[in-house]
Each structure stands twice: as C-alpha cells, then as structure tokens.
C-alpha cells in the first residue's frame, strides 16, 4: 500500500510538471496553430538561467521570477522579429520549421554557455528534507511541486475563464480572424500569448530542475512528452492540458514501475491512436 501511495505521489509530481509545460504548448498551438518545437529548449533555458541566478544571488525565489521573465523576453523577440513574418493560413508548417531552427540555436547556445555536463540544482532551503504523510516518507520539495502545479492550474483557469484577456484568447483559439474583425489587435495578443507560453515553459524548467537536473538532451525529452500530453488531452485547451498531464504523468510513473520497457512505446501508441481517431484530442476544441 505504501508503495502505491508513493508511486501515486510520484506520478502527480510528473503530471504537474508536465502540465506547466503542456499548458504553454497547448495555448500557443490553439491560438496560433504553431507547434512550438523550441518549447523544450525554452524549458531547459529557463532551468539554466535559474541556475545562474541562484549561483549569483543564492535565492531560489529570485530565480523563480527572473528566469521565466528573461526567457519570455526572448520568446517575445522571436515572435515579433521572425515568427510574425510567416503569418498566413498556409504558412503554419513554415512556422513549425522556423521553431525547429530556433530550437537548434537555443540548445547550442546552452551548450556554449553552460557546458555539456549535467548540472545539479539544489532544493531551496525552505523546502528540503522529507516528511511522513500517509505512512510514507516523501520529500517536501516534491509535495510542494504538486501544490504549486495545482495552484497554477487554478490561476490559469481563472485567467482564461474569468478575465477579458482570457476571453479574447478563448475566442482567438476558436477563430482568430473573427477576433481581428472585432477590432482587437490580434497581433499583440499573439505576441503576448507566445511570450506567456514561453514563460510557462521556462517556469517548468526552474521548478523541475531540482528533480531532473539540467543537461543537453533534456529539452528533447520534455518536448516529446509535452507533445504527447497536448495531443492526447486536446490542442488549445487548458482542461485538455491538465487532464492529459494527469493521464500521462501517472501512466509514465506506473509504467516505469510495472513494465519499464514498454511504457514509452505505449505512450506513443496512444498518442498516435488519438491523433487518428480524434485529432483534436480528448477535450480539444478546434475543428479537425
């Protein structure tokens, strides 16, 4: 029983982390029809920037705030300078290719700046050690990550469902042209959301670093897993990203414990199946 509870908690940790990444990816796709292949690179960049901030100032909290901001700025620049040139109904694939090129450059930049060796990131002082809950010993940091993820999910839901900007985003996901027709500067919304999505990726990188560490190649793994989540859960919806992350996070964790060799294969098989049967995902909104 203890083992089950522990694995459940482990799964939730993975889920929450995936959710933060997938939320950004899903929103960007929903709004702009662009699969951001550089999303994993932004995750990793966020982690490394946080590492540097922590080394300089010794504060995890500062890293938590600065790293996503810095990376979001980069995302904004990329959107305005490059991505924007490729707008048009038939140019989505080119945007995807562009982001692939960006991913190459960002990951190489990371290697050039921080080296290729693995970097370990310490737990923040306040959240180190372990506690005993439900009769199991569990690290404090991971528990707080679960809490953080849930809180973030709630905040994002509030934003999307209850604010004007959120309404614009929802409308944009459904039909961006109409939103433009209503007199709203769609370009600005796109830019802002792209930067926001990027910030989410970087935020995930920061909070995930004490668990996964940082190394070149991590960006690929994160991206692939996030893609699976977003496809299964639903492209363009927060709900989809949330439930998709839950499913994938738990499946990955229990899969590792039960049948380690097949778990990855199964994930992709499910992803492929969903794409074929319901391309917009379980909770997806856009027309296929």
């Amino acid at each position, binding site marked *: 029983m203890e083992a089950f509870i522990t694995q459940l908690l*482990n799964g939730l940790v*993975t889920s929450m982390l995936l959710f933060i990444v997938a939320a950004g990816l899903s929103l960007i796709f929903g709004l702009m029809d662009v699969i951001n292949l550089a999303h994993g690179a932004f995750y990793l960049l966020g982690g490394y920037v946080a590492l540097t901030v922590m080394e300089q100032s010794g504060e995890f909290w500062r890293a938590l705030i600065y790293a996503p901001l810095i990376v979001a700025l980069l995302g904004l620049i990329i959107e305005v300078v490059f991505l924007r040139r490729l707008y048009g109904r038939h140019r989505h694939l080119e945007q995807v290719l562009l982001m692939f090129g960006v991913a190459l450059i960002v990951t190489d930049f990371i290697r050039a700046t921080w080296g*290729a060796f693995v970097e370990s990131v310490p737990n923040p002082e306040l959240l180190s050690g*372990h506690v005993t809950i439900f009769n199991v010993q569990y690290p404090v940091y991971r528990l707080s990550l679960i809490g953080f993820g849930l809180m973030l999910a709630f905040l994002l839901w509030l934003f999307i469902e209850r604010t004007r900007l959120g309404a614009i985003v929802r409308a944009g996901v459904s039909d961006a042209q109409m939103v433009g027709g209503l007199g709203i500067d769609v370009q600005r919304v796109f830019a802002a959301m792209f930067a926001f999505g990027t910030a989410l990726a970087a935020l995930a990188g920061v909070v995930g670093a004490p*668990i*996964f560490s940082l190394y070149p190649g991590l960006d690929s793994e994160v991206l692939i897993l996030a893609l699976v989540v977003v496809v299964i859960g639903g492209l363009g919806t927060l709900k989809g990203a949330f439930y998709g992350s839950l499913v994938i996070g738990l499946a990955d964790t229990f899969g*590792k414990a039960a049948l*380690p060799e097949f778990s990855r294969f199964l994930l992709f098989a499910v992803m492929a199946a969903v794409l074929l049967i319901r391309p917009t995902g379980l909770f997806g909104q856009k027309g296929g």
Partner: protein
Amino acid sequence: MTVKTKARLTRRQFLKAAGLTAGATAASPLLSACGPAAPAGPVKIGVLLPYSAVYAELGNSIEKGMRMYLEEKNSEAGGRKIELITEDEGATPDEATPKAKKLVEQDEVDLVTGIVSSGVLGALRDYFDQNKKLLICSNAGANQLSRQAKTPYIWRTSFTNWQPNWPVGPWAAENVGKRVFVSVPDYAAGHNMRDAFLNSFQAAGGEAVGLQLTPFPNIGDPAPYITEIANAEADFLYCFYSGGQAVTFLKAYGDFGLAGQLPLLSAGFMVEEDVLPAHGDYALGVRSGLHWALYLDNPENKTFSPTYQAKYDRTPDVFAVQGYDTGRVIVEMLNQTQGDTNVDKMIDVLGGISFASPRGPFTLDTATQNPKHHIYLRDVQTVDGAPHNVVLADLGEVVDPGDDSKG
C-alpha cells in the same frame, strides 16, 4: 506543339568531356596526398576524445593527464618528437566514426588513442582491426573488447567494466549484508557491472532480492525506482550510474530519506571526483570499488595528485590517471621500439609493459590487452571541507578473466 530542345550528346561535347577526364587523371598525382612523413619526423598520435556533449569533462581529464606525462618527458620518446592531433569523439558512433576516419586517412596518424564511450569503441572495433591501425583506448570499458571481440590492434590502459565490481562482491557479503538490491541502467555497461558483482557476491553466499534495469540513456525522474528500492527487503543497494543519471539518482535517494537507512555500494564511477562536486553532500557515505582514489596512499599518487592540481587548477580524477598512464605506455612502447612506428613492432612490445602508476602497480596484460591493477574499496568522506574518496581497503590485484566465466 512543344519543341523539345533536349540537347543530345554531340561528338564535340564528348571529346571535350573525355579530354577533361584525361587531364584530371594526369593531374591526379599532383592532387593526391604527399607520401608518408620521413621516419625521422614526429610521431603523430591521433587523440579521439569527447570535447562536446555529455562526456566532455572525461575527455578533458584524460587529455590533461596524458599531456602532463608527455610534457614530463619533453614530448619525446624513442628519439622522436610526439605530436598530438585531437578530434572530437562526440557521444555517438555517428559522430565519432568520421573523426576516426579523418585521423587515420587524412592526418595519417601512427596510432590513435582515446575513446570514452563503449558504444563508440564497439562501433570502431572492426575499423581498426581491418585497417590494422593501433588503438590504445584510454577509457571505454566494454568487456568484449578483451574477450570475444579482442583484436591485436586494440589495447587498453583503462579497465574492463568487470574489474571494479567483481572484488567488491565478497567484501560486501562480509562487511555489509547478504541481501542486495541491484539497480543499473539497461545497456551493455550496466549489464557488465551487474553481472560482475552478482557473480562473486552470490558465490560468497549473498542473494539478490531485487533487480532493476532503468531506461538508458535518460532515467527521467528516478522517484518510481527509488520507491521500488525502498519497499524491497534488502540490506543494501548496489548500483552503477554515471554522469547526469548518477546525480539525479543519488539526489532522489537522499531526498527520499534512504541515504541514512539503506547503505549504498556502487561501481566507483558513480561517485568519482569528476562528479562529486555535482553530488555535494548527497554522496557522503557511499562506498565504491575502483582502481584509484584521490587519497590513495602510494608515492606516485602523492606526487601526481598535487602536481596535477597545481598545473590545471582542478582536482584529478581516475580519468586523468588513465590519461597519465596512457602517456606513459605510449612513451615506454616507443622507447622499446626505438621510435619505430611499424604497427606490428609496436604491438609486440606492448604486452608486459609494467610500471608504478598513481593507481599502484600497473602491468599491461598480454592475454587480455588490458591492465592488471588493484581495486580499492573507497568511501566518500569530507576531507579538506569537501566530499572526496578515501581508501578503506585494498582488494588486491584484479585481472580480467578474458571470458565470461566470472560475469
């Protein structure tokens, strides 16, 4: 009506093309390579080590160790100067193979050294064998290169994956416990390490209560595996991880509170000096077997370590020692052939080269083309304010059996 002006091959065109071809062929002796360097020139040694990607730090250490020895000997051996040509091995055979070919075919080196990754070594084995080029491997420990895949052209100054694990089995059975949980990554090196340990551990009366094969190369979040370990009824954990995996694994081990409760024994690479800074205090108390330790007490190491530290402003590690020994083996070999880089002459003198190394007594075993050296049982303790490896016991000289009989 469409007029097709697909120009056909006229006689003029053909003659011109033929003329070009003939001209090019006639000019070819001018274009092709100059002949090999005159025998009195420098000995060219190709160094294939990772300088980018995940193993870069190991490559760095090995090269520094090698250069340190060569500089002690004025970069000279057998009456000739030694010239190093370095290329980046990368992390995969895909990256390394073109570089190896460049060293051998374009730079026309007399021999090649380096190779950190066992995967790369396995992929290049046939190349060196068929091109009859000497490779002195300074790291990759794949067992089969000293066993069924042995070739006269590949020698090692490092280790086989079997060596650091096998003597630890009986020691653990006697000093730690009789029930072990084994966790290794699912690839050749991981399997090698596990088999070597279990072979002697079980022979000494121990039993394995759990076996775990984790995804390679990326373990992801180790938590599910740590949970499995925590819920098993073992006296201790034996594992092998390297690089990034080692760091995440050990950290999760500590975070879940297992560090104080379940002793951890490992193959030495997991807590070697190169990776200890990243581990920090998470590595304290981890015991391991390896063919060297920072605080190993012998005259050579007492000179080597501080000199290396002063020269490069970094802590030496086992890889630096391997590089250092490689330099020595190359120099001794060339001294014995008196500078002759004919591959058969070089191979002839390699077996039996023996000297006192920072790792203790070192002999190149003729049968396995791999070192005979001692394995030490080490413990990570705080020395001079930081975690380092000290020696608890000398487990004696260990020689690879040359076949799979002992795991």
